[in-house]
């Protein structure tokens, strides 16, 4: 009797799979991960802070410091503007946007070498945020140009364009 029920269940499943357009070419979708308890994901793999927490959810304190930095920048107090961002980084050390802002300020101060490395750092933290990365590459391009490396600048620009395109 049990065997009969199992046959019905099996036939039903075949039907469902068929309806779903099962193809022998496709990558095996079964069994799922939880059905293979001996397999494990390397625990280093985890969703990044940025993936879990989009940039718009910065704490008010960080937003206030970014605003303060911008006001100082507009009045030409660049070091002071950087200082506000450094305070923000202490609160959110892995916020790629903050690193990018410091990079922008350093470029405005004509410190291309430092701006370049800060933009690279921002890129390292910007997992999945293509727009932010594209801006970083543009910044890197400009810094490379100021450093007298037009070819590297061109490559950086291409990378910036690629990120926007894709």
């Amino acid at each position: 009797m049990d065997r009969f029920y199992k046959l019905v269940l099996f036939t039903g499943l075949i039907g469902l799979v068929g309806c779903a357009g099962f193809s022998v070419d496709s990558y095996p979708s079964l069994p799922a991960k939880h059905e293979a308890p001996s397999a494990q994901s390397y625990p280093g793999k985890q969703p990044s802070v940025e993936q879990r927490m989009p940039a718009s959810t910065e704490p008010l304190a960080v937003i206030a410091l970014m605003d303060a930095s911008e006001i100082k920048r507009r009045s030409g107090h660049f070091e002071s503007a950087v200082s506000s961002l450094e305070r923000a980084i202490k609160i959110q050390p892995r916020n790629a946007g903050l690193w990018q802002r410091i990079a922008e300020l350093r470029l405005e101060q004509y410190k291309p070498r430092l701006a370049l490395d800060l933009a690279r750092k921002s890129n390292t933290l910007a997992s999945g945020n293509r727009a932010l990365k594209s801006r970083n590459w543009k910044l890197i391009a400009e810094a490379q140009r100021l450093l007298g490396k037009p070819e590297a600048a061109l490559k950086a620009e291409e990378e910036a364009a690629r990120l926007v395109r894709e």
Partner: protein
Amino acid sequence: MTAKRRKKNTSVRRGRKKSFRTRLWNRIQRLFLFWGILIPGFVFVVYIGYLDYSVRHLFEGKRWSIPAHVYASPTELYVGAPLKADAFEDLLQQLRYRKDRRLSTEATYFRNLNRFKVSTRPFRFWDEEQPSRGIEMDFVGGEVKSLKDIDSGKSIAILRMDPVQIDSFYPSHNEDRILARLQEAPPMLIEALLATEDRNFYQHYGVSPKAILRAVIANLRAGGVVQGGSTITQQLVKNLYLNPSRSLWRKANEAMMAVILEFHYDKDEILEAYVNEVFLGQEGRRAIHGFGLASQFYFDRSLGDLELHHIALLAGLVKGASYYNPRRSPERATRRRNLVIDLMKELGHVTPEQATRAKKMPLEVSSRGRHTTTRFPAFMDVVRHQLRVEYREEDLTSEGLQILTTLELPVQKALETNAEKTLKALEKRPKVERLQVATVVTRREGGEIAALLGGRDARFNGLNRATDIQRMIGSLVKPAVYLTALDDPERYSVVTRIDDVAVELESGGKTWAPRNFDRKEHGPVELHRALAMSYNLSAVHVGLDVGIGRVVKTLRNLGIERKIRKYPSILLGAIELSPLEVTQMYQTLAADGFRTPLRSIRAVLANDGTPLRRYPLTVRQAVDPATVFLINTLLQEVMREGSGRSVYSLLSANYAVAGKTGTTNNLRDSWAAGFSGDYLAVVWLGRDDNRSIRLTGSSGALKLWSALMREVSRQPLDLVPPDSIEWVWIDSESGLRANEACSNAVEYPFISGYAPAAVSPCMKSPLEDFGSWYEELFRFGGED
């Protein structure tokens, strides 16, 4: 003829005699003029010139001698800030805020359970002036829940508390002061001072004959010195000279110098110097000079916040700060204070009602003085070292510089407490004794030194083991060996199999035969496992394969500046480094391959708050972030499954910390280095005589590392894979590409395109897979 001649002769003799007398007289006159008037006059003029020079030199050079004041990192207040109510109150007490329900002055607070009302103290930070503000805040669950401005009721996004002063750079005579301008001093203080010390200050020319006469009469009557006739100007001269002798010659000198001082400078300048110079107390070796510091020292108030009864007490202390010490002799100090109040009443400076009210007030002296000795000698050592590059010693001790450092007091406190506790516990083990310790804690990003311990006795100002000793680093070097290998993705990945077999090397006529800690060989072992288990033979094989020169280059890229000799033994950590140097190396790993020089100072301000120099955040990409990502995931495995796994008996598993332990030959040194999401710490344990401590990195240093991280770290480690990283399932039996369906499959990170291409037999085609599932189903059914 003869008579005539005789007469003539006599008159000649008389003439001669007269001329001799005249000459003699003239000579005496000349001698008198020369020796009695001209020479003494000349000497006097030269002496006055010398005094004039001395007075001007002393007055202009020394009156503003203020030690540099050193501050800890300020606490940031914002909604969500990780801070407990008790910790906040502790901070307020360290900042010497007074409990005052009315918040009548700045630097006061009031606590009701988890709600605080605070009137903050203003402070000039590097980037902006922060005025005093009235704030109201609530704490819930170890966080700041709300932060509001009392006056407007509006929320405050972020606010920096004034920083705790942790030290001063005193000149050789240990004078400390807070500079006060005359205009800032309460008029009542000046009135009290003149009433008690020098009523005719604005009338005399430096000395007051009337006052001297009055003093002489009083002293004659009393039969001894009971009253001084010195004016404020004379007292200032005396203080500037720092000579306590009471000889008549010195008194005369003082008087002359006082007149010269009055000649050169106006009354207000002299009074201002006096207000800042006068000695008002002693705390250990530190001498309290001036009313600015004295008001903080005795009342925890700024000068502008003093009331009549405080002012009278301070003015009374001028007569004898030690004799009338209000902390030691409160009754004597009260009598002296009330006398000053009465004097002020007599002179009409205060009304009888004010005087009566003030005399009824308690002394209100704060219960304890500030800390007498340097509290953080090891950290201050690093600060001083950094400052000496740019400042001369005399700039540090006299210019009143304000040095804003990176020291985080809660982290330092946690470090000191846990170090003492852990070392005591370890010394309960047999034959473990005389342990010493050095620890450096930094912020994971930015390289700021948050805490530093140079030895077991945190207050001992001697050998700083965090910076001044170099010890073999043992296995702490291994991440650099594997980083070098992984930087060549064509040859090495995290699953590359390495032969963990014995090796013998000839070097300089000697044979070097390294062994594993367990004295076994482990055969082919995957790279990640070799690091996690800290196998020595694997590290030697990999290091020799990639080249010792390249490993040294990696160490240099990570921030080791010391010259490293290219011996094979460096692959097992035969490199002598200080804990601070090791921190620099691991800092580059923690910061994704970006090197940031470690910093102990954020900024230096002039005494008036003008920014002089800032030490900003800088980064330099030193190693490819993708390779560092690989190493960091391996360092997480070390702490999860390898030699560091005991950390999770204290830390929550989601912290996913990355780190490495190190042990040197004969168990001489025990190391632990690693980082969480917010802090990096490097711990060394050993003995000063370099004998065995009978502890490994895991059984020694790691204990302190874990206890410390549990207390200070608030953010789990969250590694962000760069774009060039891909995750691939690997069959751990064959080491080949698999999928999550395979039993024993683990997902590992690879540099994109360099994961093993060959497919493991465990990966069956979908059809096969389907068939086996089908079979399984019926087999299961058959058994039922």
